[in-house]
């Protein structure tokens, strides 16, 4: 029983980290319905940003969240203005090819700038706490992961309030649902999309700053997370911020529990099987509105 409870706890903590990664995609794909295959590369840039600021100025990645987030917001807006705006009205395949191209551009630029070496952050607040654990009913909870989970919760809550409870968020939703109608009430769709891309890039870069404490940093680090993030957003439901959070937790727990009882090869198989099942019976996702 303890084995199962520990697996669930591990899964929940990992789920929060996955949620962090998926949060940016929630806006770009889940809400604005634009495809971004370079999502993982924004994460990678966030991780390199945290690493660079730590090496150059000794900044802790948790402090780097602010500068990295701001720079990546700018990059997100730039990517929309220079690239995505031009392909937005075209075939979805155009968006796929454009963002796959962006993926290679960003990834290979990182190879050129940083080489393909694996970089590690070793002297940060969270890495210094890496052995610290909280024990509840015989279940170990790693303190750094708990902090990561807490940050994920805060980010999701902030995003939820922004999207669902502010005029700006409603304008974003209106733009996503019917651009022409939004224009009639004075919303400028291009601006909304640019802000959405900026926010999406900034949020995933913030996730990168946190993940840099737990994972090796290298130019190809984003891809496995991108795949999971897409599954999570689709599973949670398009347009549902809290749905994404719950889906990330489900994915974390499914991965964790199946691996305890079955060969690890089934770890992702079950995640994607549940994605297919949801797709068959509830195409809008678990908590999707459209």
């Amino acid at each position, binding site marked *: 029983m303890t084995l199962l409870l520990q697996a669930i706890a591990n*899964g929940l903590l*990992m789920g929060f980290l996955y949620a962090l990664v998926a949060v940016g995609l929630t806006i770009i794909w889940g809400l604005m319905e634009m495809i971004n295959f370079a999502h993982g590369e924004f994460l990678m840039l966030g991780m390199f940003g945290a690493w660079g600021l730590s090496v150059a100025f000794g900044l802790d990645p948790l402090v780097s969240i602010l500068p990295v987030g701001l720079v990546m917001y700018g990059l997100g807006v730039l990517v929309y203005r220079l690239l995505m705006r031009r392909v937005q009205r075209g075939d979805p395949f155009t968006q796929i090819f454009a963002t796959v191209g962006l993926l290679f551009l960003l990834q290979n630029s990182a190879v050129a700038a940083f080489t393909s*070496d694996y970089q590690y952050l070793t002297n940060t607040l969270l890495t210094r706490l890496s052995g610290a654990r909280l024990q509840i009913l015989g279940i170990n909870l790693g303190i750094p992961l708990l902090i990561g989970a807490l940050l994920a919760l805060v980010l999701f809550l902030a995003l939820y309030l922004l999207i669902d409870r502010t005029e700006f968020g409603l304008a974003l939703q209106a733009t996503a649902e019917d651009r022409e109608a939004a224009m009639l009430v004075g919303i400028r769709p291009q601006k909304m999309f640019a802000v959405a891309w900026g926010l999406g890039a900034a949020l995933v870069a913030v996730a990168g700053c946190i993940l840099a404490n737990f*994972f090796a940093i290298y130019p190809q680090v984003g891809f496995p997370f991108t795949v999971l993030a897409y599954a999570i957003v689709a599973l949670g439901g398009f347009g549902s911020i809290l749905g994404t959070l719950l889906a990330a937790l489900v994915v974390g727990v499914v991965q*964790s*529990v199946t691996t305890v009882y079955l060969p690890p*090869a089934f*770890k992702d198989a079950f995640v994607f099987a549940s994605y297919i099942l949801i797709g068959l019976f509830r195409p809008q996702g678990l908590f999707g509105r459209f």
Partner: protein
Amino acid sequence: MRRLLITLVVVAALPLLAIALYQPAPAANVQEVLIGELLPLTGNFASLGQQYLWAGQTVEDIVNNDYPDLAVPLGPGKGFPGLGGAKMTLVVRDDQSRGDLARTLVEQLITVNKVHFINGEGTSGTTSIIQPVVEGYGIPMACHPCASPTLTEKGFKWFWRTGPNDKTMVASVFSFFREWREHGGPTDLKTIALLTCDNLFCQDNRKIAGELAPAAGFQVVLDLTTKTGATTLASEVQRLQAANPDVLFLVQYPPETAVFQGDAKRAGWMPKVLATSNGAYSDQTWLEAQKKTNGGVGFLGRDPTAIDLVQDRPSWKKVNDIYKKYSRGQNMGELAMREITGLLWMADTINRAKSVEPAAFAKAADETNMTPAQLIIDYKGVKFDKNHQNELATGVVTQIGWDGEKHTIWPWDLAKRANFKIIYPMPSWQERDSKPKPAS
């Protein structure tokens, strides 16, 4: 319908026609020897590819420039003396860590660039994909850091390997375990667990370890294969904790090893012995990072050379200085050493062949008999068996000490020279945290 059938037959026959019509570059008046260097410079295995590229550039530099005091093949003098001073030129292609692209690129290197030799691809999986293509064209080829035994066991006519394969190297680890008991080691190590990733390299290691473990007195209590690129190994650590093996045999790349270390630390788990094979243990950046955390202390693993002893060789130091010109100051790791050793053998063989004709190369390669004095690595020499595997390539076992460096612990004669006390059992995570870190 008939027209469609004819079109299909023509399309299918085109590659065969290309091979049939292919003529290797003429041997006479060779101005430069073209080496097709097919590497994973981007994509998942880019960190390996860049080390191999730096190694290739180092050898190109050694061959083309005069290093009078460098006691390695073609160190003194410029170019290939056997070919009238012809230069060596690398024709580098990046396959993006993709086997399908590697296949296309290697055909281009042979048919368009007319290279005389194929070096690559650096990973066993992709090398096994391009081997039949190169074999079809009859061009000599090598992959020296590739360790999968199957690459040479297939008996290809045009493939050579100077480096040891996984059978040799994993066998070293289990020979060490067997003999350790007689050399004052623990006698109560009875169980072993295998935690490996899912590609050809990891699975070859897993199979060999699984075969050798019982003979070394171990019962395999858990055998877990994980996905390359795993983002969490917490549940795997839980299962390891429950199985509680005395020894963990871990074969993972650096990112997954970092994930494993994080999850094992959070769970507060560490086996008595942790043995590895290549992967993170061969990666310089992972090794350097361990110096800041003590995270790698006690990890033991197979290496093709006694890296702590080989650094005393004057030729190693000089080659390392050249290597650092290309590697942004990074020292040669054992992967780079394997690659440089192999490329120097290739250059020496081309020089002895006095020709870039494949048949002449093959003859010279079969006659290879290099001595340890000509090498920057600890092999007993270079001499090929019938499958073109260097039968003098050796494996040693090293362990990471509290100084963050690797120290030779097997074979025993080298271990005696290294004079290092084996760390046993593996230090706990608390002990690692509390002791000073060599690079902090």
